[in-house]
């Protein structure tokens, strides 16, 4: 055994494996079948071995000399029954005994060794297994584990044969078999099992199978005809290549990876608000379509941000590690969630690329696989310096994010900037030609200009809509002119206008004046004047502060003085700024108010005072003074800076010129007018640029904090119990990590994952693609390549493909092509029932793959054959038909995904990949057909078969409307019922119906035709379900009957299945 090469060993294992399989199947045939059929469960198979109870006599065993393989025969027994207490987990090891390593388990009898090679009766484990005393027997009764007699026999034979240990197969590098190719290796194993390939499926089955496998959609009738008519020898390969080149290929491939990446459009916890990270989804589609090699695909997602000068695409790819569920729930303890996110990211990475269930080692050493708790936390340390916060803020975008710039983004922005610059240049040029002299520099000093605008004299302004209850214009007393306004109030009395007249423009340095006469026999306690801009919040008051409007002691209620002396005219004055009015403010009305008495108002207006020397809109110097130390909004950065620095700082002549030119064009009231049109145009372009830029979406990316967080082994997996400190690192059982810096980073990790010496990555990847194509992986537990996982059914084939995949530069399309062009894939999917019973999951590969379509494929196929499908790619998720009250009854009140807002038009008919994915309440189409909720990484979906699925495919408006559209296509395709049925079969199944099938369908059609003829109002209802409209002028009875036929054909088992 020691001299055996791995190659030999593998061959031998294969041989005995299949023998063993057959033995097991014959014993447990009925039970297995029953169990599988009942549960519809394609997952783990537990085979129960029933053996002879008294068969521990070595001579009795005819097969005693058949070599026992540790990996195949013994490890599963020990792993299941012993390793929990005698395995890798140091923290839970009993009796200091380790049975997973030869060094610790095997020894000499005199040392009391657990296993004495060649001598079962001297081995302590054998003695303990045979014990009847419940306190001594192994496994102990409280463990609830029990060895079957066959397992005991197996152990005994293994010890007898020398108790050879082997390293777990998946941790050894794959070796490429000398026999080349999928078919050669499958043929070899079939031959050993006494089986052979099934005949090749017919061409129409094949094209539908390939099209579904590569694009997730059935072929069109034209594509079928093209293939059927192509007599060339490379017809099949050419057909495959057409589908590999289709953009639909990337969409189909992406959906499996998005399960692995746990991609969703919401945060996934508590409020479950929307998150904008669909650019990552689109990146995955595009990565498959442009056939990005799997190693680069890996590095970009795990460490795109750490590449030298990462491209936008490489940054978007890091969204993989932002796809985990996050919380924004108030009350959460931040440390706890930082911890959880790193655990999730480390576990997902290990699961997705290495097929390891590393998450087991969060709380303790892994009980079965050689991953210690410390090693888990070393892996975790790569992800524990995440820059994204513990709380997602329930925000659409939680940093770090990047803008997803479209290809023409830079060109567009450049175009805007250039247009702006050109316009700016014209402005600058023009301003340089404008003559301007600063009044502050003129000799002699220009005079101060005074203007007076009288606003109320004898009457309100022309056109004013006056509201004057209890007020009157009187002849006596009068201050000037012929009238004054008398206002009388026992309490508050007000006279005002608020519209109709030309607004008053407040002048520079404005100071209001107003003459009042208070009745000495009835003097008011308070008088007030009030101005209307957008609001009435401009008030000046005199006397007692009784009128409770606006904030006291502010411009809303400015105390301008005491109550004036009654019995005489008094002129009252206040600055416009006192009541919050600035130069150029427009005033649209005023109000005179008294409180408790009688007053006369006359001759009210405003005096402007314009000093060209100190006025910033006339003097450059004054402007610079005014802006010193301040921010000047709207000015270019350098001008802003120069202004802020004030006049004291020396400026170069060209800088002064810049300031002057800007001033002339933008500020100076005597020169700026001619620039207005150009400036408006400039502002419009700027706005367009900003609008364009803001409309560009962003997406989540992964980044580290500038300073890494310290990582520790977390005792018992508790976020607040740090133990031993750890550095980023990888498990010792796998090849060593090559780190480039002092501290290993994610880029090192990513490169280590795709390093040629890593035994897992390539195997895990090809197995997952195999599972996609064949329905079940060569390693059935595609998520677990550890010792608890199932052994590969075809180890040589798995390894041959794993090595070939690497040799081909991790070329995914090439790998897919290799699989779908194989004879293994091209076999017919039918087999006699005993074969189904013997091998329900088709692990022996003696027939072609046949299994139910996934949720997305089912909906997409329906839309596709109906002609309703909209093929637009990418962008924000859409909301197609969904029954009411899926989101609403469970959503959090404040969640922005509480209410489902159905989309319209094209949104209803996009590929299901683009359906908005709300993780706490996925679309029922997805949930119903086993799509995972994307809360955790999912490597393999179930395929169940339930009545709820039947109800959906029969009754859902999405499917029924599509049936109507399909019926429309059928009617348009031909005139006779038989031809229409043939068209339907060809569109949905790529084949023609048999005569019998056609007759059954036709019978049903006639029944429906008769029914709808008798009840045309029912026909009308039938064809009007859904948003799209039936074709105009169609015979409604006919269309309704054909709709039911389409509904029937879309529900055929053969339609629901990839055959």
């Amino acid at each position, binding site marked *: 055994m020691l001299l055996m090469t791995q190659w030999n060993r593998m061959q031998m294992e294969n041989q005995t494996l299949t023998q063993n399989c057959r033995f097991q199947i014959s014993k447990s045939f009925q039970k297995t079948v029953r169990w599988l059929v009942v549960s519809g469960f394609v997952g*783990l198979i537990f085979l129960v071995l029933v053996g002879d109870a008294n068969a521990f006599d070595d001579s009795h065993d005819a097969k005693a000399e058949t070599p026992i393989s540790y990996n195949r025969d013994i490890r599963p027994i020990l792993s299941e029954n012993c390793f929990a207490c005698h395995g890798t987990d140091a923290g839970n090891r009993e009796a200091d005994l380790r049975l997973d390593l030869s060094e610790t388990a095997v020894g000499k009898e005199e040392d009391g060794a657990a296993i004495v090679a060649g001598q079962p009766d001297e081995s302590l484990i054998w003695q303990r297994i045979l014990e009847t005393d419940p306190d001594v027997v192994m496994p102990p009764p409280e463990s609830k584990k029990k060895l079957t007699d066959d397992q005991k026999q197996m152990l005994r034979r293994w010890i007898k044969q020398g108790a050879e240990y082997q390293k777990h197969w998946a941790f050894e590098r794959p070796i490429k078999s000398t026999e080349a190719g999928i078919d050669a290796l499958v043929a070899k194993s079939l031959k050993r099992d006494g089986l052979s390939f099934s005949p090749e499926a017919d061409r129409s089955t094949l094209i539908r199978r390939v099209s579904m496998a590569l694009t997730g959609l059935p072929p069109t009738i034209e594509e079928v005809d093209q293939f059927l008519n192509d007599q060339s020898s490379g017809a099949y390969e050419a057909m495959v290549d057409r589908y590999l080149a289709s953009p639909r290929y990337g969409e189909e491939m992406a959906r499996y990876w998005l399960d692995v990446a746990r991609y969703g459009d919401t945060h996934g916890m508590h409020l479950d608000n929307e998150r904008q990270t669909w650019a990552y989804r689109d990146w995955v589609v595009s990565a498959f379509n442009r056939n990005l090699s799997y190693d680069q695909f890996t590095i970009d997602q795990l460490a795109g941000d750490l590449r030298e000068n990462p491209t936008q695409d490489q940054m978007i790819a890091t969204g993989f590690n932002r796809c985990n569920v996050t919380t924004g729930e108030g009350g959460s303890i931040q440390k706890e969630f930082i911890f959880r996110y790193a655990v999730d990211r480390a576990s997902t990475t290990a699961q997705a690329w290495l097929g390891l269930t590393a998450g087991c080692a969060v709380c303790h050493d892994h009980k079965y696989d050689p991953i210690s708790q410390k090693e888990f936390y070393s892996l975790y340390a790569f992800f524990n310096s995440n820059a994204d916060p513990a709380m997602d803020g329930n925000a659409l975008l939680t940093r770090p994010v990047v803008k997803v710039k479209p290809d023409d983004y830079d060109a567009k922005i450049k175009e805007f900037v250039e247009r702006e610059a050109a316009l700016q240049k014209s402005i600058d040029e023009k301003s340089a030609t404008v003559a301007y002299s600063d009044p502050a520099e003129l000799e002699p000093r220009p005079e101060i200009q005074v203007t007076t605008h009288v606003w109320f004299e004898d009457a309100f302004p022309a056109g004013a809509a006056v509201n004057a209850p209890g007020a009157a214009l009187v002849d006596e007393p009068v201050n000037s002119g012929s009238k004054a306004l008398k206002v009388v109030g026992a309490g508050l009395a007000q006279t005002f206008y608020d519209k109709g007249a030309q607004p008053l423009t407040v002048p520079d340095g404005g100071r209001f004046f107003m003459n009042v006469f208070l009745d000495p026999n009835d003097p008011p306690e308070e008088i007030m004047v009030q101005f209307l801009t957008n609001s009435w919040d401009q008030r000046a008051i005199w006397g007692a502060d009784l009128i409770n409007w606006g904030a006291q002691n502010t411009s809303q209620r400015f105390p301008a003085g005491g109550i004036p002396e009654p019995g005489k005219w008094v002129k009252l004055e206040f600055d416009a700024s006192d009541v919050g009015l600035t130069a150029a403010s427009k005033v649209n009305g005023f109000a005179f108010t008294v409180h408790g008495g009688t007053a006369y108002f006359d001759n009210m207006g405003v005096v402007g005072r314009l000093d060209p020397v100190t006025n910033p809109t006339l003097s450059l110097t004054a402007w610079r003074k005014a802006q010193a130390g301040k921010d000047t909004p709207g000015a270019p950065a350098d001008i802003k800076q120069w202004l802020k620095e004030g006049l004291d700082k020396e400026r170069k002549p060209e800088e002064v010129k810049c300031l002057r030119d800007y001033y002339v064009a933008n500020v100076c009231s005597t020169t700026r007018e001619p620039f207005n049109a150009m400036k408006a145009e400039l502002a419009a372009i700027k706005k367009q640029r900003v609008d364009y830029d803001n409309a560009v979406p962003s997406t989540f990316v992964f980044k580290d904090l500038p300073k890494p967080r310290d990582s520790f082994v977390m005792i018992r997996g508790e976020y607040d119990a740090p133990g031993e400190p750890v550095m980023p690192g990888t498990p010792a059982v796998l090849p060593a990590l090559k780190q480039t810096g002092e501290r290993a980073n994610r880029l090192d990790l990513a490169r280590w994952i795709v390093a040629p010496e890593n035994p897992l990555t390539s195997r895990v990847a090809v197995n997952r693609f195999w599972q996609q194509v064949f329905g079940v992986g060569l390693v059935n537990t595609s998520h677990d390549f550890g010792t608890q996982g199932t052994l590969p059914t075809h180890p040589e084939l798995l390894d041959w493909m794993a090595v070939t995949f690497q040799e081909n530069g991790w070329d995914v399309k090439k790998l897919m092509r290799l699989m779908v062009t194989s004879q293994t894939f091209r076999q017919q999917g039918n087999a006699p029932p005993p074969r189904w019973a013997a091998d329900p999951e088709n692990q022996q590969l003696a027939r072609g793959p046949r299994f139910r379509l996934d949720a997305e494929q089912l909906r997409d196929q329906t839309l596709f054959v109906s002609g309703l499908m909209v093929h637009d790619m990418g962008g924000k998720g859409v909301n197609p038909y969904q029954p009411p009250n899926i989101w609403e009854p*469970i959503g959090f009140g404040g969640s922005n995904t509480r209410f489902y807002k159905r989309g319209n038009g094209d949104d209803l008919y996009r590929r299901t990949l683009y359906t908005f994915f709300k993780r706490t309440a996925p679309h029922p189409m997805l949930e119903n057909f086993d799509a995972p909720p994307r809360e955790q990484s999912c490597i393999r979906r179930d395929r169940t078969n339930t009545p709820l699925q*039947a109800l959906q495919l029969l009754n859902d408006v999405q499917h029924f409307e599509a049936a109507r559209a399909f019926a429309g296509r059928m009617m348009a395709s031909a005139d006779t019922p038989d031809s229409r049925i043939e068209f339907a079969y060809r569109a949905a199944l790529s084949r023609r119906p048999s005569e019998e099938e056609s007759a059954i369908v036709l019978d049903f059609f006639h029944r429906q035709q008769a029914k709808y003829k008798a009840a045309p109002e029912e026909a009308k209802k039938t064809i009007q379900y859904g948003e799209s409209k039936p074709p105009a002028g169609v015979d409604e009875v006919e269309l309704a009957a054909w709709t039911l036929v389409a509904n029937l054909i879309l529900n055929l088992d053969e339609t629901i299945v990839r055959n």
Partner: protein
Amino acid sequence: MNNKNPLFEHQLLQTRRQFFGNVGLRMGGIAMASMMGPGLAAQAMGSEDPERVHPPLPGLPHFPAKAKSVIYLHMNGGPSQLDTWDYKPNLVKQFEKELPKDFLGDRITTMTSGQAKFPVAPSKYEFKQHGECGRWVSSLLPHTAKIVDDIAVIKTVHTNAINHDPACTFVMTGSEVSGKPSMGSWVSYGLGAETNNLPAFVSLVPNFPAGSNAQALYSRMWGPGFLPGKHSGVVLRAGAEPVLYLDNPPGVDRSDRRAMLDALGKLNAKGFSKFGDPDIQTRIAQYEMAYRMQTSVPELTDLSQETQATKELYGANVDKPGSFTQSALLARRLVERGVRMVQIMHRGWDSHGNLPVELGNQCMDTDQACAGLITDLKQRGMLKDTLVIWGGEFGRTVYSQGKLTRERYGRDHHPRNFCMWMAGGGIKGGVELGETDEYSYNPITDPVHINEINATVLHCLGIDHERFTLRYQGLDQRLTGVEPMKVIKQILA
């Protein structure tokens, strides 16, 4: 059956017989006859072992079950134990006094960890002793108070999670981290159900009082996790279409469906003779089951046959679709028809601010229906084999969150101890388990982990929770998590 090969033909029949005889699904007789010919159909139908649509796992139950079905009344948000079941008369004297620091601990939600003070808020409600057992019950639960001799109250349930999402996930799946199967999915997976016309596991999501602080629910609370999708809870919806896609499209009636299913069955039977794939047979049967559900579900939700006396047990809202009251009555009808597990997810128990108003509304909305359900089950002789569980995802703090007066206070999340009750199959009535300290802040006797509740639920169903595992991701996964958990013997009948 046109296959020319006699051996193949024979094997086909064998498999079909095996299929229908051992594991198959009972189908509508008409369809069966039309598809298989009368002889074969009779053979399949006449099997002495009436076949089940939802069969149990082989070897389950592990031992004779006390309960056949489960009704889980989930009070989402965290009902206050201090104002319902955990009577602390001495707290009145502690009003507004600071909770001693050594009680407080450091695992407090960030909603109150910043509070300057942690003043004690005694319950404003009057507690009285009820039943032969003399159970103390607050005045908020006058109806439940009348059935205390039928229920076991556990006052020392504790959980690890302090926030709703992880805590709900924990209480329903045995794990804080999403991705695990819900309790109902486990039960469906293990035991199947007695009904051939309804799902094995049904969830109801009733409405809740306006103005209550309702938290979100998550489909993972009835989701199958890594179990096959068919074990997912089917949400029974209020109103016209109780099960998704149950109704035929407009213009399509039941006879159209029958005709279509007959044609479909014939065509699929041809597919079976061509491919030999047993999944085709299952699919035929599932379409027939779907057809039956189109009548069995409306029959289920049609309450016209219920007597006035029964309806009165549940309360005034019983005829209001979507009310908790009607949901409770539907729960009885579901288990009566052989559904294995029913879950009612009632929201709004998260009383942070104005607890007396909010909690008062919540209790008003549910109290009578809970008691009515127990009484109704008992009167029909169903309580002895139906297990009923009442409780939330955690309890609430003794200290007030926000403003405190005698009449108005709020309470934050409190995972260290809270109250649940269980009744019916396998449970001893009139029992109380566990004492908490003077502040209802920590258990002092008999702490019960929520996974011990789960272990006990399984125990009542005849399942040893340690042996009820599924290997997934390298671990023997189970409803009760990886830590050792005990069945709560003290409350078993």
